[in-house]
């Protein structure tokens, strides 16, 4: 079997393992009654803040769109929990000992998160939007679906990079997940325009996932030119590639260090 075919097989099995993990957490009923209720509550929470701070409905819609897309970001970043799952299952040292690279497994195993993030964010937008009186311009609004998928994938790439970091410092897993997600919410244009913060922070946020994709999606709703939307989408894709490259370069280093100092233990 060629190297590419072997890699594809590993990725397929890893994806199926991730999907099985996800199915053990959620059935479609618990997804709808649990997770999706949380997503709608999160988007509504910020949309209501928008209604409270201004009588101009654009403030509400700004927060609604930003926080719906932030859901795609959180789900993507959640993909790094795959590392901890392997640890709890006692399979982490076995994965590192296997001849394939752990990044192939972790990169594929958490990829269901990008899919889940896309479905969650788009559903939130299409349910909460009309509830708050937001116009969804047809058929232009359909562009939001692939752009949301791009954002979710970009955040998933970022999550895979963080999985490498957590691989080495596993006792800070939840800490990394939540602080990353909150930082994205704070600086990536989710709640206030990028221009609100100092220029240096605006520049940094351009290298974070979500920022550029969110600008593209806001552009769709505001009727921006196709070239502007495509430009932002291209930047988001570049950020995604950048984070995945960083993950590929750093992941094996972190794993090797763990192998050298014997810190790839089982359990907590």
């Amino acid at each position: 079997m060629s190297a590419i075919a072997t890699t594809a097989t590993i990725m397929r099995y890893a994806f199926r393992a991730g999907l099985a993990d996800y199915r053990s957490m959620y059935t479609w009923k618990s997804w709808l009654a649990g997770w999706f209720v949380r997503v709608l509550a999160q988007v509504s929470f910020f949309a209501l803040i928008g209604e409270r701070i201004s009588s101009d409905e654009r403030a509400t819609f700004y927060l609604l769109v930003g926080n719906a897309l932030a859901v795609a970001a959180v789900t993507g970043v959640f993909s790094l929990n795959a590392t901890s799952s392997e640890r709890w299952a006692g399979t982490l040292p076995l994965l590192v000992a296997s001849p394939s690279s752990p990044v192939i497994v972790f990169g594929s195993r958490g990829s269901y998160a990008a899919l889940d993030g896309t479905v969650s964010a788009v559903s939130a937008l299409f349910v909460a939007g009309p509830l708050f009186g937001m116009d969804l311009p047809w058929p232009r609004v359909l562009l939001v679906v692939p752009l949301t998928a791009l954002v979710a994938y970009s955040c998933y790439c970022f999550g895979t990079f963080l999985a490498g970091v957590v691989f080495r410092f596993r006792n800070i897993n939840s800490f990394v997940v939540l602080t990353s997600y909150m930082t994205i919410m704070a600086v990536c244009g989710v709640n206030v325009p990028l221009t609100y913060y100092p220029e240096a922070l605006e520049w940094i946020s351009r290298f974070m996932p979500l920022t550029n994709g969110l600008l593209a999606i806001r552009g769709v709703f505001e009727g921006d030119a196709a070239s502007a939307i495509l430009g932002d989408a291209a930047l988001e894709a570049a950020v995604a590639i950048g984070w995945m490259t960083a993950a590929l370069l750093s992941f094996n280093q972190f794993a090797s260090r763990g192998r050298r100092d014997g810190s790839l233990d089982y359990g907590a």
Partner: protein
Amino acid sequence: MHGYLAGLKLEARLIRAQPDSLIPLVTAPLFTIIFLAIVRESGRYDLQPDALMAPVLIALWWVALQHAGQIITHDRWQALLESIVAAPTSLASLLFGRVTTVMCLGLVSFLEVWAIGAVFFDVSLRFEHPLELVLILVCTAFATAGASLAFAALFVMTRNAYTFTNSAGFPLYLLSGVFVPVAVLPGWIHPVSSAIFMSWSADLLRASVRPAPIDQFWGRLGMVVLLGVISFVIGRFVLIYVLRRMRMTGELATA
């Protein structure tokens, strides 16, 4: 009392050993930045006190759901529950001690939020009713401890508490009006919100940092305490039932 003090010390040591326990102390400043940025960017400087109070309440909900609420489940996973139940000290007093430590951690977020507002945004909380503010914070922490005990007892019965805790945060923030008052929500939600102690705490906290006198202060504070006591009682009864069932079925040590 020995059990209570042992619980206090044990949880303090566990928090020191687990950096994840300090998550609310990191998320509270970030929520403060987000909320203050929203209100200031829109020119609503009058809402800055509300933006400062909301992260404190969110931090308390977080410790109740994610930390204190998971205490028994984690003890069970680590096969500690058998030893704790077999010990002569009451499990409830030990738990109460541990939950108290966690609540103190949650209340540290108040100081953080205050500092973040002052350092990064030059916004300071005006302590218009300092005594009332302290009483509200103490009673809210007490009621949150009650809710934590109820969560801890209920979660140990479920197969996958993670699904619930991961989903319950924002619905609770919304229903308890941590930032947007419950009065703004649709009328059919009001009875549900009234049964949540945090909705009373949120309204009181917002009122305590405004110059106007606080309407019906003692009655509303009494509701916070009453709802906290009800949570304690529910938690205590569920705990008795769960432990009895585990003893009978031999599941005390199984995850």
